[in-house]
């Protein structure tokens, strides 16, 4: 493959072309090989892969899982602008199996119709996992600024999780905490594209397993952060593995009740002036989301039960 094409493909999938070209010792060599293997499996992001008919055919199955297993409840869909591009910013939970995304995607598609273009950004590893290629038909594309820009320019609704792998593997005792790790790319994206931000807050996802640690030190020691863009190597107690290291093969989530709430849109330039301060916007969005998460958490009596 020509170098330029490789670089372009890498950029579209959210990582630099040369990031998997080094690695320490034998472990590093093995991981470099794994990284190349994963990279080769990551499909080139193509917004056209979203298939409304496929989504429609699969909504009943998703509805059964969301309604019966997770007892999902989605509020505030009327806060999402009816038309036009919108950046929905969510807090992420549930390890590599994220029920909040599934519950919200179902609710969004049922409410606005599968005809409304709706994309979700996901970690490269999620898209390269065997058996998860169907996610691309649901509108899931690799998390990168390029893909996000393309989705919004096409007039679509876009769901992003700024906290990504860092937030999704937070320990169980931080389950009711919004933690984007200071990532502000979503604000720049909203400003560049001049689109409103709709915060989407969910609770319950981090009760689908007993998440113990993100394993950041372990990930760094193994060089996973450089090779696979993995800043964490989480350890959890989860079915069917009992002790689950890495969550690479996913897990069977516990049937925790999932509640999601979409908040009113934030028009950045209207609320923060023509040149908004990123830190101020970040503090505002995360504070709003944390307050909502606190309120949603206060409605719960017991973990999992809801």
């Amino acid at each position, binding site marked *: 493959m020509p170098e330029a094409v490789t670089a372009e493909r890498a950029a579209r999938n959210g990582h630099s072309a040369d990031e998997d070209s080094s690695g320490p010792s034998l472990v590093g060599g093995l991981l470099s090989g794994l990284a190349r293997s994963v990279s080769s499996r990551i499909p080139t992001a193509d917004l056209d892969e979203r298939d409304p*008919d496929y989504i*429609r*055919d*699969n*909504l*009943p*199955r998703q*509805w*059964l899982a*969301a*309604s*019966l297993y*997770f*007892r*999902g*409840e*989605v509020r505030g*869909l*009327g806060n999402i602008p009816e038309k036009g591009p919108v950046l929905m910013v969510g807090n992420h939970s549930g390890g590599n199996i994220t029920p909040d995304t599934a*519950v919200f995607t*179902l*609710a969004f598609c*049922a*409410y606005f*119709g599968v*005809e409304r273009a709706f994309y979700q950004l996901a970690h490269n590893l999620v898209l390269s996992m065997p058996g998860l290629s169907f996610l691309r038909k649901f509108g899931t594309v690799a998390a990168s600024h390029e893909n996000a820009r393309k989705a919004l320019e096409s007039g679509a609704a876009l769901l992003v999780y700024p906290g990504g792998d860092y937030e999704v593997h937070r320990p169980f005792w931080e389950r009711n905490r919004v933690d984007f790790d200071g990532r502000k790319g979503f604000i720049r994206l909203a400003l560049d594209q001049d689109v409103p931000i709709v915060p989407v807050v969910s609770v319950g996802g981090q009760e689908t397993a007993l998440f113990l640690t993100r394993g950041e030190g372990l990930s760094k020691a193994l060089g996973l952060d450089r090779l696979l863009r993995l800043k964490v190597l989480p350890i959890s107690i989860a079915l069917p593995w009992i002790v689950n290291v890495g969550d690479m093969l996913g897990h069977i989530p516990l049937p925790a009740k999932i509640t999601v709430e979409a908040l009113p849109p934030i028009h950045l330039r209207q609320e923060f002036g023509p040149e908004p301060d990123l830190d101020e916007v970040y503090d505002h969005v995360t504070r709003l989301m944390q307050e909502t998460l606190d309120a949603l958490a206060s409605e719960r009596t017991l973990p999992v039960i809801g």
Partner: protein
Amino acid sequence: MRVSASIDVAASPQVVWDQVSDPTRYLDFMSGITRWEVCSEDPRGLGARYRMSMRVGSAEIGGLVEVIEWVEGRDMAWTSVTGLDQRGRWRLRERPGGRTHVELRLSYGVAGAGFWGWISERVGAPTVRGHLQHTVRHLKRQVEQEQTRRRAAARRQAGVGTS
């Protein structure tokens, strides 16, 4: 999947029709309905379009529907244009004593969804049936209470006039 609910209302078909043919009143008496927005130039009549949703389980299910049958004071039927496949009908029939038999029917499903579609239609049926039953009960209460208020107002008016 087809579900229905019916009830006898102590009012004439025209009074009931005024209620069920007015889209602005749907959120007041239709159980489970989270929106019923007019999407056409004409808010009522043949060809009128509405964007509607009904809460069933973890989703608000519905889509764009269009009125395909409109017989003043008797029948109104709609079918889906987008979203969940559905066909609904208000059927009003006059009964002796100035009463009206009201029937609300709804057929729904997701064509092409196969086995899981078949299962989900049945799992959702008790909720949908419950919404329909609550709806006709709310309708009866609202129409009869409104009629009682109108009669009382008319009596008061007549009383003022004669005193």
